[in-house]
């Protein structure tokens, strides 16, 4: 990276109207799909046109960092006269350039300010080194050997500068994780395509299941690709879903016993499906509404009794004193 040296003190900063949209993992509603799903990364970058001819892969705020060998004062501080500020106006996509011609003073690194002090750099480097895996604050502390207040300040600072972002870890929701802004959190952290902000997108899943069921009912027998094609040709959702996602949904529906998987025999209903190919169909009529067929054990109290291990004929818990039975036989 080329350093321009202290002779040309220029600082660019992206000011986003919606701070959250850029700085953290949280997305504003306009960036979410129909079902509250995040748009793909590329889409999000489009909202941030390269302010100085930067490519999409390296948004302006990120490149700026590397151009800055000195510590500029904080954005919100009063010494804005030293700075050339490039303001991005999202609605009009115009940039306003202001230049203050005053001679540059050597900035003092102010702890707690927006510039990168040594500690900031250390913290940032550690976070960057984790790439898309992100890092938990406690681990960060261990690796940097910095005291808590400093780390917190650094994180705040780096976040304010849009250099890092906080991500929700799907398995450890209570633990704050940070990731460098240029990385997208890995599948282990987000939970994969079915997760939004670390939560399973159940509404979306249920909607897909419902649609798949309707399609299978209509088609009687269908392969995963068949269902996916039906989705596409009939434009059943305005959300993008991949054929992989449809396969996953169908698989879970089989586990739910909503549909059954069969291999095609090539005969009768299966004539259009190659022999031996896995396809899906509804179980015989009536079963769907009832769910799985009730068994013998579940129709009596003992079958699902949490106390069965402690229940003995003459014990404290016994069939003759059993309250579950009394309730069951109360008619």
């Amino acid at each position, binding site marked *: 990276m080329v350093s321009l040296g202290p002779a040309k003190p220029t600082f660019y900063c992206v000011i986003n109207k919606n701070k959250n949209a850029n700085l953290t993992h949280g997305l504003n509603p306009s960036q979410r799909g129909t079902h509250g799903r995040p748009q793909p990364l590329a889409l999000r970058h489009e909202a941030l046109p390269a302010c100085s001819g930067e490519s999409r892969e390296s948004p302006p705020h990120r490149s700026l960092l590397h151009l800055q060998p000195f510590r500029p004062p904080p954005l919100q501080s009063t010494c804005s006269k030293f700075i050339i500020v490039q303001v991005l106006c999202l609605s009009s996509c115009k940039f306003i350039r202001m230049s203050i011609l005053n001679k540059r003073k050597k900035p003092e690194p102010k702890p707690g300010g927006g510039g990168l002090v040594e500690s900031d750099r250390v913290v940032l480097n550690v976070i960057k080194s984790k790439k898309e895996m992100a890092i938990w604050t406690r681990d960060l502390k261990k690796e940097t050997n910095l005291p808590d207040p400093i780390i917190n300040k650094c994180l705040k600072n780096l976040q304010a500068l849009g250099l890092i972002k906080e991500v929700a870890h799907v398995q450890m929701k209570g633990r704050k994780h940070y990731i460098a802004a240029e990385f997208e959190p890995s599948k282990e952290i987000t939970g994969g395509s079915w997760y939004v902000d670390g*939560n399973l997108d159940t509404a979306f899943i249920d909607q897909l299941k419902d649609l798949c069921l309707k399609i299978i009912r209509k088609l009687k027998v269908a392969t995963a690709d068949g269902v996916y094609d039906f989705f596409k040709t009939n434009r059943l959702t305005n959300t993008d879903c991949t054929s992989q996602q449809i396969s*996953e949904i169908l*698989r879970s529906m089989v586990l*739910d016993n909503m549909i059954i998987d069969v291999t095609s025999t090539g*005969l009768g209903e299966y004539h259009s499906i190659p022999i031996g190919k896995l396809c899906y169909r509804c179980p015989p009529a009536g079963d769907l509404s009832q769910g799985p*067929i009730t068994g013998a*054990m*579940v129709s009596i109290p003992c*079958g699902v009794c949490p106390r*069965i291990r402690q229940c003995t004929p003459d014990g404290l818990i016994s069939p003759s004193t059993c309250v579950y039975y009394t309730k069951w036989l109360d008619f």
Partner: protein
Amino acid sequence: MVSPHGIKLAVHLISTYFGDLVSKVCECLLRKGTLSLAQVIRYTELGKQKVSDALLVLIQHNCAQSFTIQQPGGFGEAPKIVTQYMALHDNIIHHMRFPKFLAIVSDEFGQECMEIFEGLLQHGRLSLNQILDRHKDKHRAIVTSGENSTAANVVHENFNKLAQARYIERCHAHEPFLAPEEGDTPAKKRTARSKMGDVPQTLEARALAAAAPMESIRFLVEADTWSNATLDDDSKKNHTTEIVGEKRKQDCLEPIPNKEILWRVNFEEFVRLLRHKCCVSHVTTRMDNVVGIVLSAIFDASRREETKVKMENTVPLPMNTIFEEAMKSEEGRSLTLERVRASLVQLGCELPTLGIDETYSVDLKKIIDQAQAQEVESIVLKKYGREAYRIFRLLSESERLYETDKISSTTFVEKKDALKILFQLWKDDFLHMERLGNEAQKSDILLWKLNKRSLWEQILDDMYHAALNLKLRLVHELEQAKVILRVLKGKTLGDEVLQKRKRVGDKWKVLESSLMILDDAIMLFHDF
């Protein structure tokens, strides 16, 4: 090895049918395994007479089998012949199913056959003469002496029918002698083999095989038995009625002088029949009616050819035979050959590539496995919820280790929730868990697996437990009802009294029918 609650249920059944003394001896045999008379006396601390009486009752009712073995004598002594006794757990549990067996016979052959059959169930074993006497006793009021021989003919005919249908069979031999196997004492051999796990044949299995009548005469009703019965009718009358009456165990105590052939109920045939029914009803609900009709036709056509109860596949049958058999039933009359063929494919049969020699055999084990899995799944669903049900079904698909993440992503259950469910299932012994240390994540990776074999055994034990509880609750309700009825005795039959009675009756009905349904499940897990 019988599960703990299997033993408890058996002991309870024996105690309700034959009293505490017999049940004590039975429990001793069930818990300790095959024993000699002296050993039973030592363990139960009962008198010799009482123990041998109890053993005789058990043998009479086919709940125990005796056999003799040769044991090496002490120093300088000749080898001794010792009689051993073993409890037959399956047969004891069958006692709970007598109403089912009776219903089958009554449906198929009507009231008169059912009476003969009922006698055999009540007394455990009877000779044809005894059956005849029983019949005469019962119908003494209505049958005049002139009609005696016609009545006897009818009994004989019905008896024949039952034997031909294989619902009854000749009794097992009393105390067959087991020749010692080379080298080892039988006791040692048994333990060594069971440890090895391959169990070629236990001592008990050998004893049962030795006691069983030859297949060729198992269901044979000899003509001379019958003629004897009619000829010596009067002379035997007193003796037999006495046996049938109170001292029915007498015939086991001493060898029967005139070597009358004793008959008993052939439980095996009923288990087979119920197994067929279970398979048919399972495929009917899982697939459709026609598949059920076709499978039922296959069973009907191959009824005689089945060699054992737990047949893994049906006897291979040509397409024509299946089709003809299916056409015999009311619902199958409208079926086409194509439809039958499609049903066979649904049943998992492969179509022969060449049209000639089209034979089919259905994989019954798969059907039974599915039915068993369904029962366990329904328990998981009700006890742990839908998400657990999904997870459980995933794990039961293939018995391999699954990582928590994989489980969570395949079943669409939040990872945290999935972990909670998995732990709960693991705590209740539904799953097996393994930890894998993971340095990178500084935490253990948890792997989960379903061990069907051990879980199925545990479920069966729970079923025995539940059946025992149902029985005990039934006894409890009966006692409660007695109190209620005693209180109501003096009162006039008002609405309130009638209602109370009705409620007591309803409770019994619910408990009884639940027991029968639960028993179907027990059979599914144990006998099928």
